[in-house]
């Protein structure tokens, strides 16, 4: 039973006929060809599928299409571009954070919301905000450095 669902994804309007129970992740990846949110667990346990839904970091792997009608979706590709990078993207490049990189949507989209709401978080606040996210390559130290670097840039 498919429904017509309208969205704005990374600033572009999109319209999808989809099973309302289908998770948003499959619509982004398969219907819209936006591959950067990743399937990591399908259980909201890792964060690899994280996008912003109306600005709120959301696990797209468990978010049904019925819940995103008319919503604004942002992926890391919508956060910024090489020409107009988000400070976090600049910082993640400068710190050479990712190894496999498959987890990045979780860290970057969650940290982007954190820095928007709390531009100068301390170490504890950063760690608390990132609870539930996974990185199997163990790049945690570089992730922390990058977020702090971006926060410092925000202050400047």
């Amino acid at each position, binding site marked *: 039973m498919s429904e017509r669902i309208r969205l704005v994804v990374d600033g572009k309007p999109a319209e999808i006929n989809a*099973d309302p129970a*289908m*998770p948003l992740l*499959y619509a982004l*990846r*398969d219907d819209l*060809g936006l*591959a*950067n949110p*990743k*399937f*990591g*667990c*399908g*259980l909201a*346990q*890792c964060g*690899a599928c994280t996008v912003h839904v109306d600005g709120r970091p959301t696990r797209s792997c468990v978010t049904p299409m019925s819940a995103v009608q008319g919503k604004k979706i942002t*992926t*890391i*590709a919508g956060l*910024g*571009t*090489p020409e107009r*990078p988000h400070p976090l*993207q600049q910082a*993640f*490049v400068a710190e*050479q*954070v*990712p*190894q*496999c*990189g*498959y*987890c*990045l*949507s979780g860290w*970057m989209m969650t940290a982007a919301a954190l820095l928007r709401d709390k531009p100068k978080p301390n*170490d504890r606040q*950063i*760690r*608390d905000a*990132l*609870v*539930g*996210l*996974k*990185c*199997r*390559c*163990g*790049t*945690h*130290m*570089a*992730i*922390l450095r990058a977020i702090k670097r971006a926060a410092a840039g925000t202050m400047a």
Partner: protein
Amino acid sequence: MNLTHFSRRDFLKAGGALVVSVMIPGTVHTTRAQMSGVSGGKPPLMPDELDSWIAVLPDGKVTAFFGKMDMGQGVDVAIGQIVADELDVRFDRVNVVMGDTAFTCNQGGASGSTGIQTGAPTLRYAAAEARRLLVERAAGKLGVPADKLTVKDGVVSVSGDSQRTTTYGELIGGQHFHHKLEWNKRYGNPLLAKGQATPKKPSEYKVVGQSIPQKIVGNKVFGTLQYVTDVRVDGMLHARVIRPPSAGCGPVAIDESSIAEIPGARVVREKDLVAVVAEHEWDAVRAARVLKVTWAPPCAPFPEMTGLYDHIRQAKVTGAQVPIKKGDVEEALKTASRVVEAEYEWPFQSHASMGPACAVADVRADRATLWTGTQKPHYARDGVAKLLGLPPASVHAVWTPGPGSYGRNDAGDAAHDAALLSKLTGKPVRVQYMRNDGTGWDPKGPAGVYRGRAGLDAQGNVVAYDFSAKGFTRQDVATNESDPKDTLAGQLTGVPPKPTIIFQVPAEAYEFANKRCGWECIPPLLDRGSPLRTGHLRDPLGPETHFASESFIDEIAHAAGVDPVAFRLKYVKDPRHVAVIKAAADKAGWSKRAYPNPRRGKGNVMVGRGFSYTERNGTIVAMVAEVEVNRLSGRVWARQFTVAHDCGLIINPKGLRLTIEGNIVQALSRTLFEEVQFDRDQVLSVDWTTYPILEMQDAPERIDIVLLNQPEIAATGAGEPSTRTVPAAIANAIFDATGVRIRRVPLTPERVKAALTAGGTNR
């Protein structure tokens, strides 16, 4: 390096299907286009052809063809640095192609931290030989002897006459060398090919030694990198596999009507391999969820989990070795005034890669294309060829970055599944595992029991040292998937498995007069299609073995009443090893004091420090871990690591530091949290709740790294060595903080708390 400046504009026609060209179109395809049809075409892709390693494009850019893989640590950048130095071109003029079996020779893929150690020499020799040939050509063209020429940035000039120049592009751009190298006739890690040229001396390196960043990081951070999960082929079906609910049970009946409502969904089955396919991914996911399968009754192949280590102790031995034997341990033990003994236990662990594996296969009657994130695409090609009954040359494997890889993970199984399902359906098939397939069914790091015995004389000197391990082999399935017997697709369709019996002894340089280190392997719990089959997991048996051996060294030191660092320095004589141990201790400000920590803290948090030192294939690591142990919760926080690392010549310091950090954090996760849960019938660790790993709260506050560069010593590996040093450093620090020795991993809060409650020495 222009790796993967990819966008969806980049398509190419391949095999009659419109295929997203996933990997390095700016390199492979540009190279192919610019090198085709000139000077008699490219010689066959053989290791003894210089053209198999180096190409110079018309604009003077250089393409290097690397037969190993980078899994995110930047090995390809290091290879580019080495090639740039040997050829005297700028780093940004070098592209490194890797992982495509049509363009690279089999150098063994990602394997045992050998990306530089065994992967770089041939590239270095080939680049040096290419430079020699180019200078020779320039000599002819410019009419001066070769020794009167200098090269800078790919421009060859006459010494003292800057007007007389030519360029690599002018000399050979777009043409092949058609030049033979001397090849040792080996493939894989041992492959070595050399020319006549002598490579540069380390003192002449300009690019090697620089912290050149990975360009591909930008593609990841801006969300433009195409992973293997993102490959799409026209007419492709999405597949999901259905693994049995109980290990070792095959399907008895499948009710296809249970998925009749789902558009296009259907069952594909070959013997015990069951899958569903559908045109739309979500339909395949739904079909896999609702498909009704009747399975053979459970056969209880596993012991109770609580009895795992007793099972190992009592199991029959299928193979044993004593690789280290010096003096007479048994006789020496008789003379000891005191014997120290301890046993350590390490559980099964999962790769639990960031995403479950994915592969895409397009199998035709006479050929096949495979997109895989495996560490070893050449071997995946060979295995898939065997599975399909095709010659290896008719299978083209294209490595495409996967969702993390730390050994023989589930990627090796996905490649074979995709190939078999494509053959059975007659369509290209993309198989992606679900989380429970990835964590529940990947090959596991083996469980084992480790025993140390040491004899001390009256003065506290070690007169005998005996270390033995007993556990599951590390290779129920081989390190690569070059044979279907080593894959689930093979085993579930009737190919008999053939494990290799291989284990590990500690790697260190303790000079005990009487020393013996050996191991025994036991049979697998289930001989085929087992979710507890073992395979290589980052630094195979390294963390396991050295958790035991370096914990035991601390126990001996404690029994002898000697400071742990002083104790190690008393028995280690090799100057490089000594230097590494001292560097870690010095950087951490290690000073002799009573042990365990007499000032561990008065509140609920106790603090301690632990030392550990190991070697791995020439790389030497020592570290100090400083931990906080919460008396009430049992939580261990490894607040700080101080690491000294000697892997010979350093190619890229920043890349090396980041690699070491990753090793340490991943190993910390395995030490504190990771244990595969199972019952008599099945693995119960199937997701991140049932197989928790380290999260950000448990990441250290800081990791200080001292790099000991040895320009005159050939580079050895860095992708694993610092992994094996971590577990004992933590266990030793917990002992220092609490006075309680814990000898079983993982060191979860529950286990630590129980040990603290029991007091004294505990498992």
